[in-house]
């Protein structure tokens, strides 16, 4: 692929459920090395859009290119092979497997031999700080650890771009800080990140660029601190006073 081609490019994505258009012509271009925060009020369609990017849902129209390959209709495993990793909103770890084995499932993608996959998994386990619980059955873990394990598992596939779906929701402030720190270190490895997040502080402290979704469209994007001052964004979040009779 040409050097200046975007890493991931989605053009005019439409996803409709019946007559309701959850994503209504959204486009997004992601360059190598960015951290993008995908934000928007409830029901804005960002989760649906995210799933299209991750290859878990096929859009009705529009196109998605990953590293120059057309992946609009490609399977999730094809996305993984091409270097896209993801986490799930509700952690989907393999409960019967230990933490190490979970990570190894990811590592097998680039390392077919067990010994190699195990070695690769060890590195990821150290990198993500899962060493103390490496032997635990993942079904016995709490949610913060599961969320971290999901990130570790995706990292083990050695992705170029990592999509995180509310990886920080519901964590305590300490856990949020630890997670932010992990995300920074992942980025320092040269991995591009797309983060869907409700907690605005996270976006403000992490993202280079915030992309605001509203009613299935991208209504604003730019540096997070500028975006949250945008009147359109404030209106999308806070709602608009409707013209109507004075209160009785």
């Amino acid at each position, binding site marked *: 692929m040409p050097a200046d081609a975007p890493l991931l490019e989605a053009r005019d994505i439409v996803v409709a459920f019946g007559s309701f258009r959850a994503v209504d012509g959204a486009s997004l271009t992601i360059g190598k090395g960015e951290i993008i925060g995908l934000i928007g009020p409830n029901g804005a369609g960002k989760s649906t859009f995210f799933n299209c990017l*991750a*290859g*878990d849902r096929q859009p009705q129209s529009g196109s998605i290119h990953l590293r120059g390959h057309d992946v609009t209709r490609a*399977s*999730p*495993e094809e*996305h*993984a*092979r091409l270097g896209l*990793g*993801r986490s*799930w909103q509700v952690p*989907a*770890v*393999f*409960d*019967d*497997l230990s933490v190490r*084995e979970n990570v*190894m*499932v*990811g590592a*097998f*993608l680039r390392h*077919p*031999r*067990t010994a190699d*996959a195990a070695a690769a998994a060890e590195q990821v386990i150290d990198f993500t700080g899962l060493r103390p619980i490496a032997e635990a059955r993942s079904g016995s873990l709490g949610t913060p650890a599961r969320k971290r394990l999901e990130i570790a*598992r*995706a990292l*083990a*596939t050695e992705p170029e771009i990592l999509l995180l779906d509310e990886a920080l929701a519901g964590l305590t402030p300490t856990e949020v800080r630890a997670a932010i720190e992990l995300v920074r270190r992942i980025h320092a490895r040269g991995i591009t990140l797309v983060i869907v997040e409700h907690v605005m502080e996270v976006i403000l402290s992490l993202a280079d660029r915030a992309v605001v979704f509203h009613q299935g469209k991208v209504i604003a994007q730019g540096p997070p601190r500028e975006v949250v001052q945008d009147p359109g964004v404030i209106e999308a979040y806070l709602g608009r006073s409707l013209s109507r009779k004075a209160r009785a």
Partner: protein
Amino acid sequence: MMPAATRFAGRWVFAVLVVAALLAWPLFVEDQFYQRVGALVMLAALSASAWNLVGGYAGQISIGHVLFFGCGAYASLLGFTWFEWAPILGAPFGIALSLLLALVVGGPTLRLKGHYFSMATIALAELARIIVTNAPVLGGAVGVSGPAMPRSVLDLSFISPLPYYYIFGTVLAVLLLFTWWMNRSRMGFYLRAIRGQERAARSLGVPAQRYKMYAYLVSAGFTSVAGSLYAAMLGFVDPDSGFGILLSVKMVIAAALGGAGTLFGPLVGAAILVPLEEITNAMFGGGGTGITYVVYGAIIVFISRFAPGGLAEILSRFQAWRARRAG
């Protein structure tokens, strides 16, 4: 807490002792009845372990695995009926047919989720049973028989159950070795990942459909071998003993009782269920079938209600309880 190395060595000693005991015990049991029960345990463990690859490790609950068992059983005896071959020479054809069938029907069937997969496998097995019942060339409702008198060792026709015990045991050992190896390799990881969360597995680059198919193929092949050996031992097969739905269910139950998705679960399950069945049958004579299966059914209901993970779950609960008390 024992040091890991001691635990590891202890495991090996234990495993060697178990294998030695399994090899030796029929030699100490004079009674042919118990020797025969031993052989049947090995056979049941073999088919349940084969089922376990798909149903246990990959989590795709097939209730129609008897399809492959029947292919193997019929192939070995039809070889004799048509060409006077020794039954065991038909086994490779049974395997080939099973693999072919698995390949053809596995594609669409393995895409089905949950109950739908189970239903489809039942329908396929029933279809095979009805077709065989109504095809005179395949023996029809009467079934087919093997050689009346053994002509050579290849006929696998022995009066003593002991040779069968060792033959079934050997194939079982091969299958368990494969399972053990698989479980440590990429395939085992992928299958267990698919069982846990297929969508998440695919997002990690696991080609779920392909790996389910691999498991299905290996499983079909071994199930077919079990069928061939069973037919050689009995010297007879009919649509019910080859393709009956109850046989499929017994595979599921043996594996589930011991612990589906564990290496020795099916063996443990078979070692409990087969003697139970044979002994109650013997105790109550021909009319015992009723009671046997009532007991059988009650055990299953009990397990599903109180320990859905089988004996393996009870064991791990016990270990966790002990660890809590110790720690």
